[in-house]
């Protein structure tokens, strides 16, 4: 019992530090200005608030549409028990991305402008609209978890019945909207021709972003499910995690093939081995995002244990973040002659947003029916649910 208390207080202490740092960074951003809070400059106007908080936040939420689509459109009932969790991961991911724009935008009080001031030629305009619409779709997809809590029986049943009627349409629209903006996030970089380092420029960046987001979304779902099993007493068939890991390998191979064929097509192959910092970051990305996960997910030791799948997914997510930071930051440094390293306050804000999403996830799992197979787990048995995690 004392051990449990210790664990809880440790995490509470960490959360307290994260939020204290985040709030201090927020103060700096809004009252001391950009120079005090960020290392952004005219040469590097986009930092990790775009490169990590947005590009990775959206990318890692791709599991939501992939799994909802698999379950409701392709009839893969086997994954039904975790589809609500996958939708919630995506929902929280998008909410934190949107919240991040309070810090990222120079004039955040004008955030609503894209709703009424349209520029149909702008890729960013498409992205903004898709993200707003898809977050609405996610809210509706996720709503039964809250509707179930309506105490009045007739209203509750009516609401759930209506939800049931529109669910398939929602999922279908969700898959389309996701496919559009997951690709168009990459599309943002197409107009940077000449500025992006050749190892990361592609006129097919749309396809590349789409192809990398889906396996990354699965990896993120594996991580969230494993942690829920380990710390929140959730019981699910670990075969589901294994299935997801099996999908990841072919998806990564497709992405890698596309990536290298595309490099050849764009005439960038001679940049692959130049003695430059970019070369290092490129191969780091390939190693973490493609090579390591493909090897790890196919080792029997890794594949057969949830903790192995968890660590392999974590490596892959690191690789995914490296990839998107490379595209949005590393690739621009040579052309703009700047070297950008995020300030602590930029990281503090991003970490705070992630922490808020994690806490919201935890509260939802504990208080709502996110994993339908599991009844509410009593706190006393919480730490006993996963014997493999004895450490």
């Amino acid at each position, binding site marked *: 019992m004392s051990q449990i208390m210790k664990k809880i207080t440790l995490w509470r202490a960490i959360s307290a530090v994260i939020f204290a740092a985040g709030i201090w960074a927020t103060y700096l951003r*809004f*009252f001391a*200005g*950009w*120079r005090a809070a960020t290392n*952004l*400059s*005219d*040469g590097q*106007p*986009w930092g990790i608030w775009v490169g990590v908080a947005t590009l990775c936040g959206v990318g890692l939420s791709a599991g939501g549409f992939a799994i909802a*689509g698999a379950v*409701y*459109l*392709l*009839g893969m009932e086997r994954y039904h028990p975790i589809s609500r969790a996958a939708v919630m991961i995506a929902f929280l991911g998008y909410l934190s991305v949107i919240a991040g724009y309070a810090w*990222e*935008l*120079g*004039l*955040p009080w*004008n*955030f609503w*402008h*894209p709703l009424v*001031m*349209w*520029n*149909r*030629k*702008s*890729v*960013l*305009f*498409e*992205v*903004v609209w898709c993200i707003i619409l898809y977050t609405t779709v996610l809210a509706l997809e996720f709503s039964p978890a809250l509707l179930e809590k309506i105490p009045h029986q007739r209203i509750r049943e009516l609401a759930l019945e209506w939800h049931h009627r529109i669910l*398939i349409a929602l999922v*279908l629209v969700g*898959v*389309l909207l996701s*496919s*559009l903006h997951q*690709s*168009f996030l990459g*599309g*943002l970089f*197409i*107009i*940077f*021709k*000449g*500025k992006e380092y050749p190892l990361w420029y592609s*006129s097919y960046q*749309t396809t590349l972003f789409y192809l990398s987001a889906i396996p990354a979304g699965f990896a993120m779902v594996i991580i969230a499910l494993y942690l829920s099993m380990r710390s929140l007493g959730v019981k699910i068939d670990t075969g589901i995690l294994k299935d997801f890991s099996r999908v990841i390998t072919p998806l990564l191979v497709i992405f890698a093939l596309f990536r290298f064929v595309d490099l050849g097509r764009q005439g960038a192959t001679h940049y692959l081995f130049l003695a430059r910092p970019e070369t290092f970051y490129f191969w780091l990305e390939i190693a973490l995002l493609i090579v390591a996960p493909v090897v790890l997910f196919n080792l029997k030791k890794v594949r057969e244990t949830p903790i192995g799948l968890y660590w392999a997914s974590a490596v892959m997510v690191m690789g995914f973040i490296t990839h998107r930071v490379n595209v949005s930051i590393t690739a*621009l440094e040579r052309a*703009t002659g700047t070297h950008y390293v995020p300030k602590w306050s930029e990281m503090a804000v991003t970490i705070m947003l992630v922490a808020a999403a994690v806490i919201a996830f935890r509260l939802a799992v504990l208080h709502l029916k996110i994993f339908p197979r599991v009844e509410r787990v009593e706190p006393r048995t919480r730490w006993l649910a996963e014997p493999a995690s004895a450490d």
Partner: protein
Amino acid sequence: MSKKSKGLLIDITKCIGCLQCSAACKTGHKQPGDPEPTLSATAFTAVEPRGDKFVRRMCLHCEDPSCASACPVGAIIKTAQGAVRYDGAKCIGCRYCMIACPFSVPKYEWNKLAPYVTKCDMCAERVLAGNQALCSEACPTGATLFGSREDLLMEAHKRIVENPGVYVPRIYGEKEVGGTSVLYISDVPFEKLGFIESPLNQPMPTLSAAALGEVPTVVTIGGSLLAGLYWITQRRREVAAAESAEREPKERS
């Protein structure tokens, strides 16, 4: 192209680096301080020494600007008078225009709590009133000329032809990124003066337009594909249900 579309012709052979243009620009736009060596949030133009030459930097006012196509709220527009203008009242501060500009012209007021994008507006208000730009008016040597882009192009071609061996046979801005309203001619190759090689001899927005053009295809083909898959899933389920219903009575009998 109409005669209404104005532009500037900068003849690098004639620039003596006197900074009159920079000073006039700063005064006219009520910006503090002396002329600056590089473009900044408080300098719409800057004269950069390159060897024994002086290169004036400013917004090139592209015919089909990347910044204007990138802006999600349409805060940047190409006007009929040639100027590419920024409307701070629309801006949300996403800073996409800054990276989208192939010449990295737009700057940001990083020192302010409510920062705006800043860049040359080719003295749009003055031009609308029938005047010329402040920089060209201030230039004592005629290194910067103001006029319709059409006339300026003719003048540039004339200078190159009439002074054989003097100019590099190229007008920077004639074809680069699909053409710009600000044109340069020089006696030194442009790449030696820090001019970028045009990433495309078409307007840069054609790149993103190609991607955006896929939207209807993705929506129609993707939508019907998904609906079709769902139909198959449903049909299978129905068939399975019917089959088991058929089997059941037999099993009972």
